[in-house]
């Protein structure tokens, strides 16, 4: 079986203004949504208490909410989590709360509604720790971007690297937009998903660039725009195939992985889609607009005579 028996000839470079427009809409839309709706930050970042319980029969959530409020627990969010038998209680960080005790207290309240309820999980994160984790996570993002930029710069020219980095920034922004729209809890695993997306999306870009460099050296008669178009088309089947298979496994995670991995796998799905799009339509196009020329890609530019003369 083969989906791409002939090499496609899509004019990616001529139509790039359209794709820029689409990306601009995506980026502005995502950032706008993050700004307006905000992210539903998990307790990893806000600090607070999460208590997860499991009922033998689906309970009446309204009744549970009433019972929790009546017991004097303030600021509690009681919601179904995954199935209707799993009830999650989230509490804001409370200086008076003595951590684990709150879990048992919630359980006692719930026991009155249904004696068979079980405590599945309690998580307590101090507000200070939450803040630190957020800062740490942000640093991890920045460090990854910087290190990857350095690597791409070393491997390719400045113009290609610029295109790659901008295209890579595009993907996590889309993922953030997705989290803002769906209000899926944004926690530490979501950050790891974003980092994986960054590493993984650049993967496609690098492969396209690799091909552009190879083509530029072998087909010097072609204009750089033609080289780029050809390279993207030649690698298109590979790009789409690998992403298809990766999406297959990630969708399996999304379906079977349960609530804990829900945000994580959703972030991966969106990130992979955005990453595939940006590596095909955006990264090389940006490099072209940064003034990439065939000369930039030819080997051994470093040993130009004037540089040798410049040495002491």
């Amino acid at each position: 079986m083969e989906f791409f028996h002939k090499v496609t000839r899509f004019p990616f470079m001529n139509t790039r203004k359209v794709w820029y427009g689409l990306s601009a809409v995506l980026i502005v839309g995502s950032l706008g949504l993050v700004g307006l709706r905000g992210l539903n930050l998990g307790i990893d970042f806000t600090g607070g208490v999460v208590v997860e319980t499991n009922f033998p029969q689906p309970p009446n959530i309204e009744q549970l909410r009433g019972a929790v409020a009546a017991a004097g627990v303030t600021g509690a969010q009681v919601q179904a989590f995954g199935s209707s038998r799993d009830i999650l209680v989230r509490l804001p960080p409370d200086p008076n709360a003595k951590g684990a005790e709150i879990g048992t207290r919630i359980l006692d309240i719930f026991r009155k509604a249904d004696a068979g309820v079980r405590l599945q999980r309690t998580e307590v994160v101090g507000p200070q720790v939450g803040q630190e984790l957020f800062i740490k996570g942000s640093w991890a993002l920045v460090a990854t971007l910087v290190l990857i930029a350095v690597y791409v710069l070393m491997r390719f020219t400045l113009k290609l690297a610029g295109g790659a980095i901008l295209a890579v920034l595009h993907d996590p922004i889309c993922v953030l937009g997705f989290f803002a729209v769906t209000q899926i809890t944004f926690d530490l695993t979501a950050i790891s998903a974003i980092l994986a997306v960054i590493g993984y999306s650049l993967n496609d870009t690098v492969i396209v660039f690799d091909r552009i460099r190879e083509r530029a050296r072998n087909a010097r008669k072609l204009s750089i725009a033609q080289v780029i178009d050809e390279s993207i088309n030649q690698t298109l089947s590979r790009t789409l195939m690998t992403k298809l298979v990766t999406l297959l496994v990630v969708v399996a995670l999304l379906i079977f992985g349960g609530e804990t991995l829900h945000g994580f796998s959703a972030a991966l799905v969106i990130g992979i889609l955005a990453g595939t799009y940006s590596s095909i339509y955006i990264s090389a196009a940006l490099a072209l607009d940064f003034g990439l020329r065939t000369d930039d890609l030819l080997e051994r530019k470093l040993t130009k005579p004037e540089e040798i003369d410049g040495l002491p």
Partner: protein
Amino acid sequence: MIAYPRWKIALVAIVFLVGVLLALPNLFGEESALQLARDRAAVLESDRSSLQELLASKRVPVSGSFLDQGRLTLRFPSKQDQLKARDLISQARPGDFTIALSQASRVPEWMRNLGLGPLKLGLDLRGGVYLVYQVDVQGAVRQQLDHDEQDFRASLRNARVTYQDVQVDYKTNRVAVLFRDADSRAKGSAAIGGDNRNLNLTERTVDGSPALELQLTDAQIKEREDYAVQQNIVILRNRLNSPELAVSEPQVAREGVDRIAIQLPGLQNSAEVKKILGKTATLEFRMVDETDNPAEAAATGHVPLGAKLYYTRDKQPVLLKREVVVTGDELTDASFQPNTQDGPAVSVSLDSRGAAKMLRNTQENIGHLMAVVFIDRSREKNAQGVDVDRTTEEVINRATIRGVFSNNFQITGVNPIEGRELALLLRAGGLAAPLSAVEERAIGPSLGQDNIDKGVHAMVFGMLAAFIFMAVYYKAFGLIADLVLAANVILLTAFLSLVGAALTLPGIAAVVLTVGIAVDANILIYERIREELRNGVSPRAAITAGFERAFSAIADSNVTALIAGLVLWLFGAGAVRGFAVVLVIGIATSMFTSLMGSRALVQIFFGGRRKIERLSI
């Protein structure tokens, strides 16, 4: 022949076989087990055989046992046997062991002896409690300054040097001794310097008086902080071995500068753990006031001059003298000795300062009662959300001084259970900095099993989808890719079992993602081969070119994912690190299997043929 050196094929085969061997222990499964540990001492081979005899005599079947790091693990075919064995052992050898219920792998002994073991499961898969404690390192530095201040006063008093004042500044970490004139400062300097040779004292003028100033250097502060954290780690480890908390394989590790992370697999109730762990304790040795009546003092509330009213653990009033003989700071070690000439005893060691005081005290007080007071401070938040330290003091032991002693002595007249506890409490007593819990996560065992099921489902379905797709789309080469993918998962399992990294749910997600990455590498190669074939190159040359040309693309693209993985590894904590570890190892194994393994298989399948008409790709 397609040129691919034999030694590379041999290398691939060897790596794969070693991988299979390392991954093998994961196939045996787990069963109910007991884990036996001893306070401060190892469980011995002789204990193992005597316990096995005991269980055999009561017809409790033991399916296996092993000793590891001084802990004995006994495996049982059923849960009932496990509980029966626990009751039998605790009856037959009361107080001898800490017994924890746990699960152990059925890995045969010869494998275990080779150092092979199954993957460790993270708390989200096993269930358990994860706690992070913050150590009050500033408090530890303040204590150091206070200590120095008292030392200075004592040295000056002993040398009969007059001084005006000793000032402590916690903000700048300084202690200054003010003198009336330069002459007494010189004498003071000699006195203090003589007692503490390694102090950096500078002569300065403070508030118009000649002064000696001690400034803690950054290195000293850091050393003090490190010490406080390390000491807390030791104390927490000791407490986790206490019989009250029967935990199997507790893990205590430093996290960052001033935090301690604790993992307690299998434990449910974090409130109970926190009650025991969150305490800071110290202790004091004091002489008992034997002339007055404690019951009367307790009833009337009128405590005689020079005495202080305390209570024992069973709420009996005791009157102790106000002067402290030795404090917990001066205690260096305590251990329980089950068999001494005088029966069970607790051995105590003191530092030189404590020893000198104890020597003087015992010389004067032979035949009198000395008491040990245990002072427990727990840090709690009050209604205003401010940390307050709550102190409880109780007398944990009273014993008659039988002879003169100094740095080493024994407390006798204790029963084995009391003795163990006393040793534990004494050791816990030398604690410096207070702890507070800043993060805690407790996962129930049913949720853990649930998470395992979900992770395994996701992995199986995801991989099946990828396998079928590859076989359909790339035919024979797709099947080779499937073999390579399977080998990749085996190698990844092998590596994770070898390094002992715990598998978490995000870790399973990383395994799934790694499958995607490994597929990617194979697709790169095959698409390249197809491309070469389309350009009219012979099948043989297409294979060679496909592998060669895809190499740089695979390497480049994996490096970026590797960078992301390594950053996560460095920055991440807990579950995130679990993801990063698997991702990084997975990228490495996938590069090896796709580039070398895949090539070797192609060589084995196609290399022998004289002429390849067409490729099944």
